[in-house]
């Protein structure tokens, strides 16, 4: 028991040390740290993120390390946020990314824009912002490459994202609570399509997923059973439009906001086939 505790403590220390190494101005020659290092936890994040802290907390924010680096007249603010897990880190990245720009293969995903770069890898979400106004892409890229190397761990996006059919897919992201605005669907992935959206929620077990299905039927009201996966239903909802929800083992999924429930059902069938 003692050795397990020691191992956990060592892991936590290792993790803390790693965050320090990641946010380091010396990673790129010619840059030096300006001012003290910043460190925040959930309790005091509001001091730094006044007005935006909840947007981090909802994704399981644990702590943040940051530095401001300068070179000549340029400065880059680097913030490395540690989230509860890699899925959460991907979640906050996807929620904050510029949807009009492509996602680059940096860690689990990243974007480098003229004055801003973000990426996520393992349970870390990294943000860089450059001043003054001009194209800082080379410097941002240099920092991102070095930082990405120093973060060990997962560099593949959550598996569930690959389950969504790619045709006419606009974006896919983690919804940290209340998928489709329904509290019953606690946390899951939603893919936005040119028309309609798909979702996948993982429950603990097939039994608990079945229980959620029953509650969903009650919540939505008039539903029509459909033969998809283990169980499914179609419905028309004022806000969710034509929808189809299915259960496959411990997974709940489906399509919503389509003109007709039948449209949702045919798309849901395609989604079912991609869930292992």
């Amino acid at each position, binding site marked *: 028991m003692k050795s397990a505790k020691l191992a956990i*403590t060592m892991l*936590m*220390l290792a993790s*803390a040390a790693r965050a320090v190494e990641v946010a380091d101005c010396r990673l790129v020659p010619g840059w030096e740290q300006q001012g003290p290092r*910043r460190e925040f*936890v*959930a*309790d*005091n994040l*509001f*001091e*730094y*993120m*006044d*007005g*935006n802290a*909840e*947007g981090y*907390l*909802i994704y*399981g924010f*644990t*702590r943040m390390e940051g530095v*401001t680096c300068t070179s000549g007249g340029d400065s880059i*603010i680097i*913030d490395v946020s540690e989230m*509860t897990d890699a899925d959460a880190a991907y979640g906050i990245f996807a*929620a*904050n*990314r*510029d*949807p009009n720009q492509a996602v680059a293969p940096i860690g689990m995903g990243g974007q480098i*824009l003229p*004055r*801003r770069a973000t990426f996520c890898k393992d349970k870390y979400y990294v*943000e860089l*912002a*450059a*001043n003054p106004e001009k194209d800082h892409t080379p410097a941002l890229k240099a920092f991102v490459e070095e930082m990405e190397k120093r973060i060990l761990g997962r560099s593949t996006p959550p598996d569930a994202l690959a389950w969504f059919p790619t045709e006419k897919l606009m974006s896919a992201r983690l*919804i*940290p*609570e*209340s*998928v*489709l*605005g*329904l*509290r019953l669907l606690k946390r899951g992935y*939603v893919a936005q399509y040119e028309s309609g959206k798909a979702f996948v929620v993982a429950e603990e077990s097939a039994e608990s997923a079945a229980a959620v299905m029953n509650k969903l039927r009650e919540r939505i009201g008039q539903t029509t059973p459909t033969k998809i996966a283990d169980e499914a239903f179609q419905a028309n909802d*004022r*806000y*969710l439009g034509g929808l189809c929800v299915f259960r496959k083992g411990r997974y709940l999924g489906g399509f919503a*906001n389509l003109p007709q429930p039948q449209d949702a059902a045919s798309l849901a069938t395609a989604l079912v086939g991609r869930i292992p």
Partner: protein
Amino acid sequence: MKTNRSRREFLALGLALPATGLASTTDLARQSLQSAFQSLPASPVNLAYRTLGKTGLKVTTVGFGCMITSDASVIERAADLGISYFDTARGYQHGNNERMVGAALKRKRKEIVLSTKTPSGNKQSALNDLDTSLRELGTDYVDIWYLHGKDSLDEVKDELIEAQQIAKQQGKTRFAGVSTHSPQLLIPALVKKGSFDVVLVTYNFTMDKEVGEAIGQAAKAGMGVVGMKVMAGGFRKVKPGDPLASKLRRDGVMLAALKWVLKNPNVYTTIPSMTDMDQLDENLKAMAEPYSAVEEKILARQLEFITPLYCRMCGKCEGTCAKGLPVSDMLRYLTYAEGYGQFALGREEFRALPPEVSEVRCNQCPSCTVSCPFGVKVAARLSRAQELFA
């Protein structure tokens, strides 16, 4: 700690996209009170309205803080049910939130009051922000444009006030506001300045009466007062699985907290965050039911539960320990360990304290000279920190 200014700049980056010729031709003065509020649609729920100070805007006492909402259907439904005030900000999800809010409220734009905020620290970038906000929200004006998160008068620069005046003249906003998490400090100065129509303030049942008095001062000066963090945002800091979670999120606490805020007639509307239909339905009850004695008890119990544990970091205890302990810092280290399971971090911070501080043991003092105005049991909590980390 004043480290947030650079962060504001950060938030502004990448968001201030070039203005796209959103020249507004809207004559807002003409529009001002001819909005659809005079013919509000019937709602299946009981709605309560108050007038937002000198703006004359009639708003439901429960509004909608859109910051963490993920699904637009919740916002759409709120608008359909008659909620008339919706709040977002340029910095939320790096602009993605404004985009979603704009799409959700498109059908209802003229029937609702819409506000957004800029984190910018200078005139030009603030005005650029507003143009971007209007484009993302899909509207040619907002009803209230706030300077975001200003906690001292130094941050409320004259050039930002000038930006708000320009935006008003151009018809891009109807009213100018400031949002603050330090109402007791900032409101008196804002009242003196007289440049703002609305103030968005942190206000909840955990706060002392100074905040209520400051709000009263704003209302007396004709400012519209909007309450945020009305459910004592700290609830969200408790992570799923934390043994505190079930106690902090007990049934009825959120509704009671919202009703507590609305009990103050100087708070004209509120912007609780809502992520799902159930929260929406629950919050709507705050307009239909009075604050009850039962809820008074629920909140008293909640406060009792929170108080001995949670340091608000108000700083009032600084310098009052006879042994020179940095009290709020040490309580924070304890929160790292107990609240977030970050024992190593708490210990690391504790051990970085100078020896003359880290070697002090509170149980050696005959009595404690530190008194927390909010009732945190300081001596017991510091002893706990020493026991854990020393």
